[in-house]
């Protein structure tokens, strides 16, 4: 188990997860569909999970992997709340496009 993670150099994990994180950030900033934005936030969180797992495997320290479980639980709770809010928005305005959510300005 340890070996299969460590068969890839650690910096590559850092690069991959930074790359995934940036894709998530760009998605949140550029996409207009609320569900896609939710998925992009999940992508950002999973990039962090990957980074934590690789660091903790390389350091032989299980703390990082425990933290991953915390993140997963919180992400699940967050998505539950986010989708519930989205459903109540959809009931009122019949759309998931976030440009509609622009009633308040300045």
């Amino acid at each position: 188990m340890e070996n299969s993670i460590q068969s890839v150099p650690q910096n590559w994990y850092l690069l991959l997860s930074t790359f995934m994180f940036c894709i998530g950030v760009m998605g949140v900033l550029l996409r207009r569909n609320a569900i896609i934005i939710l998925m992009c936030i999940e992508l950002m969180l999973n990039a962090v999970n990957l980074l934590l797992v690789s660091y903790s495997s390389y350091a032989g320290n299980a703390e990082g992997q425990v933290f991953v479980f915390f993140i997963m639980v919180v992400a699940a709770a967050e998505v539950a709340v986010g989708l519930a809010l989205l459903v109540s928005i959809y009931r009122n305005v019949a759309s998931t496009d976030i440009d509609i959510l622009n009633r308040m300005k300045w």
Partner: protein
Amino acid sequence: MNTLIYTACLGLFGLLAEIFNLRKYLIPILVLGLAVIFSLNLQTWNNPQTHFNGMLSDSNFSTAFSGLALFIMLIILILSGDFYTSTDDEKHISDYMAILMFTLCGALMMFSFSNMAMLFLGIETLSISLYVMAGSRRFEVKSNEAGFKYFLMGSFASAFLLFGIALVFGVTGTFSIDGIGNYMRMHADKLDPLFIVGMLLMIFAMLFKVSAAPFHFWAPDVYEGAPSLITALMSTLVKIAAFAAFYRLLSTCFVFALGKAEIVLTVSCAATLLVGNLVALVQDNFKRLLAYSGISHAGYMLLAIISLQGRTDSALFLYSVGYAVASLAAFAIAITVFKATGTESISGFNGLAKKNPLLAASLTMAMLSLAGIPPFAGFFGKYFIFSEAFRNGWQNMVFVAIISSIIGVFYYMKVIVAMYSKPANEFEIKPTFAYQMVIAVCLIISIVLGLYPGVFTKLL
């Protein structure tokens, strides 16, 4: 730690009250419970302890801020009795109360965390509860919008916080704030670049959470759209909790590395002060005005964060108390006026002095305290933060802060002018007994603190 556990129990009780049909008695029971917890919390004073293998640690810092958080929540609960009066609200009152208790749990975790896991869990417990509360008026698009915007911005910022935590973990190999602090002390002269990137990401995330410019865009929209009582909660408890966590994080983990983040913090502080005060000048909606005023207050509190090498926690606490009591009084009056007039714009306050002179005088006192005019607590809060910053060599920042607080006086005056010199509208405005009590207590605390600020100056 006991404070946290008992508060969580109150939250569970709130959920169970639905089943046992105790809805009518729920708020009095919770108020009583919080009062008991408030007194239990005092026991941890001068009695520092760590719990759960170094996950949480009580200190005077956490005790003082927990006491303030409990007090704020107590006030919010008292206000909520007359706020949630529609039938739809009454059906969901136990859910609301339970969620408010869990919000408080999150804040308590943020005051006493000593491990990054607890910081993260605290922030998320606080935020997730608030996403729900901000969107709790299901049939109003504005409330939906507020909830969803808050959710998107909040979880976006949390992801940055997590990435920062992961990078710092990679460099230091630990999540404990003491461990990270030790690493920082030993490698102060040549810190790993990844450590600095991680620190900057965490600082950005916290700036998001405290709604500092340039990350403040979500705040006015969310404050305007959310139910007024929840706006009061967000602009007091949440802001103070975020600042306390920010202070604790920076002062334990990153003190010697702050030189690298100096530019970020100072630019953000100056921008927050100017944006908050200048944009507030053109607001017509009272909740939005208070939102921008909250942003500018975040700027003053950031000044305490910038100069934290000189131990500014007492000044931050005094400022938080003064800000919280003045805001709560202002919101209690505002909710009364909104209910009577049906509008949230400043014109609803027109001629209030003729119809209800006492209420108008109270709002004037709250506004003057927020603007930082003696003899109210707001003045001494500002004074101590400015003098600490000055002592630590931030003369330029103090100059910006003084200029912007002079600008700030104008928009607080706008409300006062509306009350005293505009013709009255026809609505009758009279606060209920609970609201009168809350307003009186908050203003008395503000004046007493303004007259005897010495109580808190060297508290922590």
